[in-house]
């Protein structure tokens, strides 16, 4: 499988504290990957580095067929290159409708001039409604997204990710605050999405990770502790000691 993202030897410190320590990570162009690890392991910081929010002190982040470095690009440029991200705390634009949130995310030219001239076509509106049904928010399309429940906001954010149609999806704790039924639906969407693109899911819930049924990377103190199938990593003594045993 072709490598889509290659992170190698990356380190970052906050005021002397090493949050990421010589981390290396690779993912192929149509792959589902789960990242697990204790609180403070550096999972979110890893996503911050890939999406350009945090600049690493050392290391390389190489992207795509043309092997461009993401380190010189701004957050917006990285997003336009095809990296989508869902945050740990759901962040949607609360005083705008569900529909407007989805339209904002739709894959379209991002410059100001295009936004001024933009008129949603039939196809665009159709796509928005299709996404809305997929995330169970079709009936809420015209409601302000601030009125949604926590779980629904999570959904909306996942919907926005799909609307962006990225090549790589970074999803931070998507199942937090969801009912079991909602979790199941989330699993389905993520597995489905990973058929055509790379998806990285950070999650604490082992049941959820098991259902994803994919390769797992265990992070600890900013570095990879183990990698492989869930059964493989959960039988690793080190992993049991730092994560599962607690």
């Amino acid at each position: 499988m072709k490598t889509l993202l290659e992170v190698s030897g990356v380190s970052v410190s906050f005021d002397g504290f090493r949050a990421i320590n010589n981390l290396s990570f690779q993912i192929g162009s149509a792959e589902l990957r789960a990242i697990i690890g204790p609180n403070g392991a550096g999972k979110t910081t890893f996503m911050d580095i890939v999406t350009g929010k945090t600049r690493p002190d050392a290391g390389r982040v190489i992207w795509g067929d043309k092997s461009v470095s993401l380190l010189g690009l701004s957050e917006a440029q990285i997003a336009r290159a095809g990296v989508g991200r869902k945050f740990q705390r759901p962040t949607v634009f609360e005083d705008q409708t569900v529909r407007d949130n989805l339209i904002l995310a739709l894959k379209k030219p991002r410059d100001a001039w295009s936004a001024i001239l933009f008129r949603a076509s039939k196809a665009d509106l159709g796509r928005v409604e299709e996404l809305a049904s997929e995330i169970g928010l079709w009936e809420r399309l015209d409601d302000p997204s601030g009125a949604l429940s926590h779980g629904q906001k999570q959904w909306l954010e996942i919907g926005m990710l799909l609307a962006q149609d990225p090549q790589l999806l970074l999803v931070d704790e998507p199942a937090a605050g969801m009912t079991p039924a909602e979790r199941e639906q989330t699993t389905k969407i993520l597995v489905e999405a990973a058929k055509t693109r790379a998806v990285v899911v950070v999650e604490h819930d082992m049941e959820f990770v098991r259902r994803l049924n994919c390769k797992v990377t265990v992070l600890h103190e900013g570095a990879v502790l183990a990698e492989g199938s869930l059964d493989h990593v959960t039988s690793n003594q080190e992993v049991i000691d730092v994560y599962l045993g607690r």
Partner: protein
Amino acid sequence: MTPRRTTLAAPSTITFLMVLAAFTLAVTVMSEGIGQGVVSTSFVKTLGKTMCLALAAVAMDLVWGYTGILSLGHFAFFGLGGYMIGMWLMYARTELIVLASLSDSTIPATASEITDAVGTQIFGVVGSAEFPMIWAFADNLVLQLLLVVLVPGLLAGVFGWLAFRSRVTGVYLSILTQAMTLALALYLFQNDSGLRGNNGLSGLQNLPGLGHVSQDIVSLWFLWASALALGLGYLFCASLVSGKFGSVIRAIRDNEARIRFLGYSVEGYKLVVFVTTAMICGLAGALYYPQAGIINPAEVAPIASIYLAVWVAIGGRGRLYGAAVGAVFVSLVSTWFTGGQAPDISLGFYTVQWVDWWTILLGLSFVLVTLFAPKGLGGLVDVLNRRSDPK
């Protein structure tokens, strides 16, 4: 599914434009110029000026209420627009006066003699007679009109590019914009600024070559022009905020980090809004000062830009009509209080003189509105709407 609302269909836009048109018509038929003479010419000018202030407030709402950039420097752009048109008005009129006085002499004056004489007339007060570089186009109305929008646009572009690129936001940005307008005011105060120092530009109410038209009529021309500019400016801003562009800038206001991860260049959008609104303010200023008759550096003092923000806050930010209503309401009330019309209140031991106390009253209302009615006067509209269509 309901289609996305278009600008023209938005009820508030239509209402606003109709009220504006009706108001302008009413003032016209009651004016001294061609109407009943109930409304004095000086009040017609006050109303025209107020419309210009409302236009600046609408622009301020776009930059602050919608995009979340609390610029405390937009009145600098307003003033610059005034200076740009003032240069042409002053030059052209002085030239006519000089030509008239030279027409008696036997030998026709050369072009450079005329320019020198005009220069002496204009710059005598600051002890100079030379035309500074910046007056290069002052004899050309079309070019000077272009400068009305280009100069504020350029200043806003350079300032915004530097500030947004370094991701200066929030209160730091507000302070920087204050510094910008202060620096501009200090520069203009200098006698060698090329704009007559603290004398400013005067006689702007006299249109060159139209000296025979009475101010009663000229005031109406400007009233109509101001109303037209306000109407078109409002429509323009309303169309900007109603579509996807509006959606993006409100997203920037609410969470600029998040919208970056959707691939939008926050800096680019902010720059577009900053420059566009600076140009609108420039235009508003260019219509305002011919009605005021004079512009001087005190006009672009930092406090003026703060007033602009206060109007928008009191009117209700994030809704264009709120900004316009706030500007009209506060500036007219302010004229009433500071113009000596408000009766002083005698408390026996102390007399409340409104000329002094008005600012305190205004400051107090600002604090109260911010604390207890963050939607401002516009919030009243919500209350009325809720009453009229109970859900």
